[in-house]
């Protein structure tokens, strides 16, 4: 749900990074946080377990710039990827304006990707959203690892609606900003339509 504040001349949008456990959602946010000028970002909040696994969510506000006198601010969230955090994961999707699905390219994580994508579609439906109508990007992460599925195969398995597919290595930052731009552009384009 986009929030347009005429008094502070701000437009706020919510983007959620979704995907199976250990696919690199938090790493995406961490890279964006580390690479962004201090004046364009707020704090990166991580609600994580002692073992550094996401417990509830990560959050960071990011200001992209001004359009027509309005500051465009994106609130970036991740969900906990582990299967048993289902209840928390669902909560984070409330009010979402755009979704990034971070797929783990490793062969052995293929089933986890499919399960998580199915779970995303189910959880969006709870709030009345349809993945097919929502700004959405598929990121194929961990492309630097040796045992990855060819990106063509991953795409044909995971792509839902002709959404942008971006190869990434979130730990080095490759593809991270391309992914963010791809989803943010769709969100802004959607605002034009609404």
């Amino acid at each position: 749900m986009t929030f347009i504040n005429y008094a502070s001349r701000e437009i706020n949008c919510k983007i959620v990074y979704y995907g199976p456990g250990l696919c690199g959602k938090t790493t995406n946010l961490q890279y964006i946080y580390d690479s962004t000028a201090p004046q364009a970002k707020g704090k990166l909040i991580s609600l994580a377990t002692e073992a550094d696994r996401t417990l509830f969510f990560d959050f960071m506000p990011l200001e992209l710039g001004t359009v027509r006198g309005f500051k465009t601010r994106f609130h970036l969230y991740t969900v906990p990827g582990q299967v048993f955090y289902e209840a928390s994961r669902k909560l984070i999707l409330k009010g979402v304006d755009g979704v990034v699905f971070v797929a783990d390219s490793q062969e052995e994580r293929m089933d986890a990707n499919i399960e998580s994508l199915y779970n995303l579609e189910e959880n969006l439906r709870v709030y009345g959203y349809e993945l097919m109508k929502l700004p959405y990007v598929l990121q194929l992460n961990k492309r630097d690892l040796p045992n990855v599925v060819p990106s063509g195969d991953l795409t044909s398995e995971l792509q839902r609606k002709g959404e942008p597919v971006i190869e990434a290595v979130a730990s080095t930052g490759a593809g991270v900003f391309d992914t963010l731009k791809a989803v943010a552009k769709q969100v802004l384009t959607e605002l034009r339509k609404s």
Partner: protein
Amino acid sequence: MANSSIILRESRYHHIKAMLARLRLDSSARLVVLVDKDGQQIAVHGELGDLDTTSLASLAAGNVAATGGMAKLIGENEFPTLSHEGEKESIHISVIGRVLLLVVFYDRSSLGLVKLRSKQISHELAKTFSEIEAESASAASGALPFSGITDEEIDSLFSPA
């Protein structure tokens, strides 16, 4: 999209700010924040200092969402108020429809006073916000700031400074 945008006009914003100011004074609080249930900060009034109210808003919404989930598990619809008491400062959150009223207060105030004053203002806030929702739903799309935005303007946000 399932939820339409919320559009907050300046006159509404100033009205909300005035309500928050009144609540802060009446409850001797440090600050009062109005937050959307999705975690967006709507308005804030009080002693900010270097407090990161954007993070506070996001965490408050997460907190309410989590306790709301627990409420449903035990057969309640939601918990309408949440309180967290610290040694020197405390937080009280009231759930008012789709918004959260968050009051941060020192030990010179009291939870009872904050609860009472929050409750007294909640009806007016709920009414104002339902009017804002109705205005947002009926806003002509052509009147929105982004309705005529061009591809070049969107691209300009992503070009290196």
